[in-house]
């Protein structure tokens, strides 16, 4: 879409959420956009920006007026093909319904019980290793290593070539943001990486016992088409790695910077899942994506024409003081963070949510057992990414328990 007109009734701003500065620290811009109105026109990108919780929630749950099949990126992929076949994230009912139902039995509470058992030993092993080491990088040594091992194992991915997972995730998510240099860099090796992923999703390249094989069984039962099975395995692989890495990293980031909260957690380790939830609210790994309006509609009294791109800021909604109170920017274990939109909401709410939560919580529990204090030993370096929020480097000192 090109900027052909500025709607008169809407606040129009020149700000660009995809600059290095705004990516490194998105929150001042979030506040500006939130206070400017329920919806703001972003001149530079020719799209509407929605940052208040009420409206982000409204749009996420109104899948009829704001569709997903227009794509999560800035292009309307109903008109202009994207770089890859549309995923479950980029589908509407009834296609979405079929795929979502196919996944329902695959990621179930009993699967989760099994996965927790599979996931636990490596969390213990890794925590033991890093706690003994003292000076670590919270991202490279913990946040990246853990999901990169346990999650592809759970899916049943072959051992070779896993180094492609991060570049692939980077392509998928960066494409949800602006068509800029950051996106271009993510796509440098695009074709080779994408080909490897598609190949890895085929049944013969997956183990017979993982989540991937379970998805193929759904196809055997005739409940989804074989090509949908490939797409669903691909969706797991692309959605389940980067976001979880950032989930762990952002949880550590907050706990390292709030020693009093870490003390609370040590005293009551059963609070770990609430700590994770609060960290997901405050530093939401998946910050932004687009929806496309299907009809003429309105947001907070502002007219939105059909076929408009609407950029949703989950990260801003999760810090909206209208919803979370004046201390919305504060990391507080005692807060009830339920209802945050870090995993989305409604029809497309993240289906891998229990897996992500389990991974982050298990890693945290393993650390609580062994670590007395977590201290930052330097600034954390933001990961430069169009729509994901996290860190590339996070120097920490882990003081082991006596």
């Amino acid at each position, binding site marked *: 879409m090109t900027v052909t007109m500025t709607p008169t009734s809407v606040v129009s701003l020149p700000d660009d959420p995809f600059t290095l500065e705004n990516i490194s620290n998105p929150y001042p811009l979030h506040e500006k956009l939130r206070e400017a109105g329920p919806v703001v026109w972003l001149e530079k990108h020719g799209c509407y920006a929605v940052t208040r919780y009420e409206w982000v929630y409204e749009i996420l749950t109104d899948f009829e007026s704001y569709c997903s099949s227009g794509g999560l990126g800035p292009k309307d992929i109903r008109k202009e093909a994207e770089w890859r076949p549309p995923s479950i994230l980029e589908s509407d009912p009834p296609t979405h319904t079929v795929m979502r139902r196919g996944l329902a*039995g695959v990621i179930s509470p009993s699967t989760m019980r099994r996965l927790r058992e599979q996931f636990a030993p490596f969390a213990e092993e890794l925590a033991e290793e890093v706690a003994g080491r003292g000076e670590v990088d919270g991202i490279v040594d913990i946040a990246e290593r853990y999901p990169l091992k346990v999650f592809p194992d759970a899916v049943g991915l072959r051992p070779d070539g896993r180094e492609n997972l991060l570049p692939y995730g980077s392509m998928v998510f960066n494409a949800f943001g602006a068509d800029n240099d950051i996106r271009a860099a993510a796509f440098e090796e695009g074709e080779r990486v994408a080909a490897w992923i598609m190949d890895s999703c085929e049944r013969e390249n997956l183990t017979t016992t993982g989540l991937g094989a379970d998805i193929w069984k759904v196809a055997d039962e005739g409940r989804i088409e074989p090509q949908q099975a490939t797409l669903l395995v691909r969706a797991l692989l692309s959605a389940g790695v980067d976001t979880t890495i950032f989930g762990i990293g952002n949880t550590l980031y907050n706990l390292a910077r709030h020693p009093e909260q870490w003390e609370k957690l040590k005293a009551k380790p059963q609070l770990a899942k609430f700590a994770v939830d609060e960290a997901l609210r405050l530093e939401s790994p998946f910050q932004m994506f687009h929806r496309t309006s299907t009809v003429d509609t309105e947001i907070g009294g502002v007219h939105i024409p059909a076929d408009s791109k609407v950029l949703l800021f989950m990260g801003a909604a999760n810090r909206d003081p209208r919803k979370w109170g004046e201390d919305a920017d504060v990391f507080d274990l005692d807060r*009830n963070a339920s209802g945050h939109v870090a995993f989305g909401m409604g029809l497309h*709410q993240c289906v891998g949510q229990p897996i992500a939560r389990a991974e982050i919580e298990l890693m945290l529990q393993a650390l609580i057992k062994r670590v007395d204090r977590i201290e930052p030993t330097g600034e954390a370096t933001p990961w430069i990414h169009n729509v994901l929020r996290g860190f590339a480097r996070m120097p920490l000192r882990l003081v082991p328990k006596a």
Partner: protein
Amino acid sequence: MQTIPDTAALAAEAGSTGRFGHELEEVVVERLEEVAEGVRRLTLRTLDGSEFARWEPGAHIDLVLPDHVRQYSLCSPLADRSRLQVSVLHTRDSRGGSRYVHQGLAEGDVIRINGPRNNFPFVDSRKYLFIAGGIGITPILPMIEAAEAAGREWRLAYGGRSRASMAFADELVERYGDRILLFPEDEVGRIDLEGLLALPRAKMLVYACGPEPLLRVIEDYCMGWPPGVLHTERFVAASLDAGASSEPFEVELTQTGTTVTVTPDQTVLEAVEAQGVRVLSSCRGGICGTCETRVVSGEVEHRDAILSEDEKQFGDSMMVCVSRAAAGCPKLVLDL
């Protein structure tokens, strides 16, 4: 599933007030009318002509009949509190409730009722789809009235064996026109659930009441809908008995060491949170699995879209945002 406490036991258990804190109340049967083939409508008034308590769409009352207590949904106009109406289907295999209403009851009789109370609360939404199978139309009538009064967009799909068996069908069509979709089975076949439900709709709640097989199919379709849209009330063939617990129950929390009462209009999650106990939740509609809680003992009526049939049977965990104690189970012990 279906328990039929006898009147004496009920009265003894309840003392002078009903089991649910409501008075057992004597009322007079003012009118008995055949409103469709095999369907009898009872109009009840208080003995002294005073008004009945306020009730909301979806509410039901217990009729305390000789040897039986039966629950029937209220289907009278909401605004008219001078009377209550219920409609009762006469079923062959009736264990007594409906037979008594159809054969033993006469106008002018005094009977006792308990309630009204509500296990099928009507939640505000922008749009509604109502689905009724047979006598399942009864709780839907006040809902339609409320949706209409609030200016909401709504439609009703109403199925039955034949037109003559479908209570209130004609007057609904007369009043609301093409918003009423009738499916008399002998003319047009069963309700077109595929057409109605295959494509999920946003901001629309589905309220369904009817026989178990119908509700199962509806549940199945609604798995593809957003969390929390489907609200059902089940009844067994004999009468409009709510299959789930329509009574308050207790939840004992082993970690916290407290016991919490869950009222019919509350979820376990809400009741527990109100006591300051923390439970992780996200969708609060039984679809994401975040609030899964281990069940130490007690029987659960599962209402989520996550657990498989086997997992439900096994019964060692539940989604506290939607699931409840099963009928006849006064207490759940949870690992909270």
